[in-house]
């Protein structure tokens, strides 16, 4: 009887643990799917907004610019004051067109879709260097590596954006180094800055992680990736994200293009 009780406890507990583990896996899978859906919706929404900006507002602004050009030729012959107002209007429209292009590019990294991660990161840091007083360096060994799946590339790109933005916003750094390494199994992204640094353990313990860091972890959870933060002895902070390689399947999203939408046939 006693032996039976001992055996029962052993087997029953093992079975319960197995069931609990299964349940946790189902829950985790469900959470992952929810997160994936949320991020996909976000990206789709970004794409839709960018498409609308590009196709509707962008086109209308270009047409407005053309009309203003024609009008300015007529006005040039008349009063100086009216000519000035016309030129100001033209420059405002031009500026608006530039803003719309920038917002569209920020919403959907078209360079990433067309030319890959390295080109998109290069474009991103070039733009940052123009706007900030920062030294950014980028190294990659992706020249011979095949393109990765859209999800993996977008995840790496968004994480890189978040890490760099965090460094600029919080670390008071003057230099950021981005390193992208691909091997047969993993893609590694290392972002190092020379700022004030932070203690990742303390942030985790005190629940101080903001939406940025949580967003990084959520994105990584979907692609089975990991992230580690460390404080180099030289100061600053180093973030190392690693994602398993998933090669591109060939189903790329259509790039943003004016008049892309199907025309209605009457």
């Amino acid at each position: 009887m006693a032996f039976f009780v001992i055996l029962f406890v052993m087997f029953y507990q093992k079975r319960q643990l197995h069931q609990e583990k299964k349940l946790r896996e189902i829950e985790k899978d469900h959470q992952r799917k929810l997160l994936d859906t949320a991020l996909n919706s976000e990206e789709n929404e970004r794409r839709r907004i960018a498409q609308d900006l590009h196709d509707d507002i962008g086109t209308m602004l270009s047409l407005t610019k053309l009309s203003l050009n024609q009008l300015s030729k007529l006005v040039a012959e008349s009063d100086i004051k009216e000519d000035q107002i016309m030129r100001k209007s033209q420059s405002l429209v031009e500026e608006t067109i530039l803003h719309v292009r920038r917002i569209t590019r920020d919403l959907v990294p078209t360079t990433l879709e067309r030319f890959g991660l390295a080109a998109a990161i290069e474009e991103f840091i070039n733009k940052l260097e123009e706007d900030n007083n920062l030294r950014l360096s980028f190294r990659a060994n992706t020249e011979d590596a095949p393109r990765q799946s859209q999800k993996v590339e977008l995840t790496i790109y968004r994480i890189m954006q978040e890490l760099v933005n965090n460094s600029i916003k919080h670390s008071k750094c003057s230099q950021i180094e981005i390193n992208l390494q691909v091997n047969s199994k993993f893609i590694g992204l290392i972002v190092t800055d020379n700022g004030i640094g932070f203690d990742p353990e303390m942030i985790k313990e005190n629940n101080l992680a903001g939406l940025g860091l949580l967003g990084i972890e959520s994105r990584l959870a979907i692609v089975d990736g990991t992230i580690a933060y460390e404080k180099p002895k030289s100061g600053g902070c180093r973030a190392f994200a690693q994602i398993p390689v998933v090669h591109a399947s060939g189903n790329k999203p259509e790039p943003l293009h004016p008049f892309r939408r199907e025309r209605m046939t009457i």
Partner: protein
Amino acid sequence: MVEKYISYFAHQPLACITVFSTLLPLAFICYRKAGVDPSFRLLLIFLIFKISTDIIMLHYATFRWNNIIYYNVGIPVRYVLLSGMFYYKFESKILRKWILNIMIVFLIFSVWDIVSVNPDILDLHGHRMVAYATTLESLLMLFWILIYFYETIRSLKIPNLLSFPFFWICSGLLLFYASFAFVAPFLTYVFKWENWLNIGFVSYVPYVFEIVTNIFLCIGVSFFSPRYYAEH
């Protein structure tokens, strides 16, 4: 004198092996430094107490002196120390409170049992075994062990029971007390110093299970790690 011991060992080999088998878990506890855990510390105290009383009883038995008083005194001590182990293992405050309350009640009951069975307590030669205390002790211990198993299954905090020290300790105690619960009610009538009743193989059952229990205790303690204990 030595011949007497040798003669006793030759006549009662199983009883002697049982006494000295206690040294095994005792050595394991010292070697694995399991005393850092309060439950294992109580087990260590119990084993030291047990080996001491067993050796005294062995000595008395060799010289044919009544040693039942040591057995009777050992019952409340054994219950306090072994149920005390569960006091440290249970997380529920209510259960802990119950362990303490029942411990006090049992102490009083076992003293009453000793006195009621032996009205002349100073008559060591005619001393008899307790009538109910051993049975009650077995039932109470079985109850705490089963409650512990239930809590273990319910909480699911232990990923691998087979490498969990206290599971083996409980299994050993379960075997010991389960076997003892069947024999205990008859002990007072069977094991009398005068008119010892020979019940054959059944009288050896507690010895066999005690050895098995000591083996289980050794297995349990061998899984104990002071580092693991410090981490938890």
